[in-house]
């Protein structure tokens, strides 16, 4: 069975005709070509498919596309603007927090959401670790990712435009 949904994706409104059984991951990748969203497990274990819906991070592989009707979705494709990387993206580049890059899109969305929610707060390493525990990375050992998140929260780092 198919159904129309209307949602905002990276700031643009889209109306899509979808198979009601589709996950949000399938619709965003196959119909909109947003291939930053990776599937690593398909059952919400690895976090490679993380996107931001309204203000929360979710695993798009276990989120039905019909649930996104009327909502606002952010994917990694929308994070750099006018050829300028977001603060978090730039942090991943500068700290060497990228290796194979497959978990990177999901991790950047998680860090982005975490940084936006915690700006101006005193945040411990333990809190950063806990907030990122839903994203598995097999390459980095997370040390550089911890550094990126910490630096993005340092006083004086302004929110991206």
């Amino acid at each position, binding site marked *: 069975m198919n159904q129309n949904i209307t949602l905002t994706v990276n700031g643009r409104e889209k109306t899509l005709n979808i198979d009601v*059984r589709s996950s949000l991951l399938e619709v965003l*990748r*196959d119909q909109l*070509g*947003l*291939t*930053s*969203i*990776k*599937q*690593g*497990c*398909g*059952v919400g*274990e*690895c976090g*490679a498919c993380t996107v931001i819906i309204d203000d929360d991070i979710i695993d798009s592989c276990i989120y039905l596309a019909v649930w996104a009707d009327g909502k606002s979705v952010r*994917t*990694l*494709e929308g*994070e*750099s603007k006018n050829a300028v*990387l977001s603060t978090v*993206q*730039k942090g*991943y*580049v*500068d700290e*060497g927090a*990228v*290796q*194979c*890059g*497959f*978990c*990177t*899109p999901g991790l*950047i969305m998680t860090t982005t959401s975490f940084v936006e929610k915690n700006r101006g707060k005193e945040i411990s*390493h*333990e809190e*950063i*670790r*806990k907030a*990122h*525990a*839903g*994203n*598995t*990375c*097999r*390459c*980095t*050992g*997370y*040390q*550089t*990712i*911890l550094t990126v998140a910490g630096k993005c929260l340092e006083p004086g780092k302004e929110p991206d435009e």
Partner: protein
Amino acid sequence: MAIGQPANRVDAVAKVTGRARYTDDFYRPDMLIAKYFRSTIAHGRVISIDVSKAKALNGVEAVFTYEDVPKIKYATAGHPYALDRSRADVADTLLLDRQIRYMGDEIAIVVAVDDLTASEALELIEVEYESYSPLISPEQVLSKGAREIHPGQSNVIGEHQFECGDLEQGFSQAEVVHEGQYETHMLQHVHIENHTAFAYMNDLEHIVIISSTQIPHIARRIVGEALDIPWGRVRVVKPYIGGGFGAKQDVILEPILAFLTMQLDGRPVKISMTREECMLCTRNRHPMTATVKIGTLKDGTMVARHMDTLFSTGAYASHGHSIAAASGSKNTLLYPRTAIGYHARTIYNNIPIAGAMRAYGSPQVVFALESAVDDTARKIGIDPVEFRIQNGARQNDLNPLNQKPIQSCGLVECLEKGRELIGWQEKMSQRRQQTGNIRKGLGVACFSYGTGTYPMNVEIAGARIILNQDGSVHVQTGATEIGQGSDTVVAQMVSQTMGLPMENIHIVSTQDTDVTPFDPGAYASRQAYIVGNAVYKAASELREKILTYAAEMTDKSVSDLEIEGRNIVLVDQPGKAIISLIDLALDTYYHTDRGGQLTADVSHKTLANPATFGCTFVDITVDISLCRIRINEIFNVHDSGVILNHSTAKGQVEGGMAMGIGAALSEQVLIDPESGKVNNNNMLDYKVPTMIDLPDIGCAFVETVEPTSAYGNKSLGEPPVISPPPAIRNALLDATGVAINEIPLAPQVLFRHFKQAGLI
């Protein structure tokens, strides 16, 4: 930015913007989806199979069984072709097979218009088995009269031994002898991108395969071998890949996909494994048991050591006996001034297939050796760091295997640096008798490793550099970027040798066997070392051509000229351009009477295999009643020669250590000992460390200069994973006095041993 600088990765922006394209990102609306029909028993034979209902399902394009595929057995290991065919990899695999050797074996394959239809069709296949009793444990496999898992072939697929020095004399001279048994279990790579590939035909002859592989050129050859078609008809393209760690150093999906597209009129066919399938049906790390015997004098001089190992490769040979053999050789350099003996066997069993995994058997062997070394140090009452410094390799020691001097070695300096970083002496001197529930421990372990596979295999690499019209260069190598940072260090090498700025060096990241220079691929921590020698040659050659052309244009002598950034300058007047590279390049392309495109295209064989060294130091707290280990501090210190890029090098070490910590504390493929069923082939039940499971990870380097490398570097990708597990095991011994000779040191294992020791 040249060698030694922490240059940002050349692919970082593509990856942080989500624009880097991986195999699954090449979408085609007409793509057919193939899915394997897999066995639900671990050992047996298919008596009959009925696929008629599956074939009749709407949307199913084809179903193939073991009856439909070529009867050609091929080897899947990602090794270069062996000219000496007696040393060729074990050819024991058919595209589909009626003999069943593990639970998940491939019997048939369905091709459908989409994933759901293919899954539905699998449910409609009816199969009848003759079931044999599964041979899971080594005891079962080696028992008298055990059934041959590959009929006509022994269940022991390889066995060898060697001796360096006089072992018998060494042990007779020994004043203290320690002997112990050690065991490691099966592990999974858990690269985040599952195995995935698709194939189609460009015309009626050529097959194109896009694959997440570490070894595109080897994959091309093996597809040719498996289907008995000329290798030149096969083209393998490797885009960005989401990790491999050795699991993609086997050729798993490419041959069947080539077969399918040939059967289906060249239409595109894809297999994307699910996580569960990928963890069960690709490759794993071999389980191993070892007996280690070490003889020493009372003053701490090691005089003899012997290891006897048994590796289980599972249902198919994959890399065969190579892993047991390589890991036995590579550790000989760690304590080389002693008699050394090694005996190893590799066996088949009815469990998932073991193949290459980061550090290729060394983590297993070094766990046994470095645990035994600590046990020995305790027996003679000597500090375990001092014991290692006393016996560890030093520069110009002879490599026990070939009697050539070790040309670069910083092992002792690594141990000294690690000891300082962890505060070993201070913490040990403050140590009092520990009796409570919470106890602290310090541990150390070392490793030695190789760089590449010479002289067992050819070490060949290709590099092509082209001067563009704008004065920049494009660089193509056969070295495959799999996340380790190969492309970035190649750019740094070109920058160093040609004098060009990094932004004027463009790396072609994709390997395409139709156009990419030959290189067997990413494995054995060979890439930056072997390709470095090719890149150096190519960059030197192109630099020479550019300067010769500049000399002709400017009427100067070649020896007076140098490339400096975007210009050619006089050697004695740096900073003053006599001609820009752009003007020179435009002239080479567009002058009507002279010049031509300036390129260098090099293939180079390296005839050396330098040893690398390093160690782990760890400080832990053990909660005895909870059976838990907490890592307070952990450091790896590496001698990998010259560090090409401190940022990516640190990344390799931290990631490897995390994988080592997982192996030490939580990871194990759980196989039912009766049925052979894997109980945790998913990321929820197989415990890869998440961010909250890991401590802060520290690392440092002792830089030596390796003379056989154009840039002084040695292996770094794999070694960081090797020594954390024995270091943590030794710290647990230090904390509790309990020697646990197996990993993972998970709570249930600690409980068993603590109970036995009367601690709980």
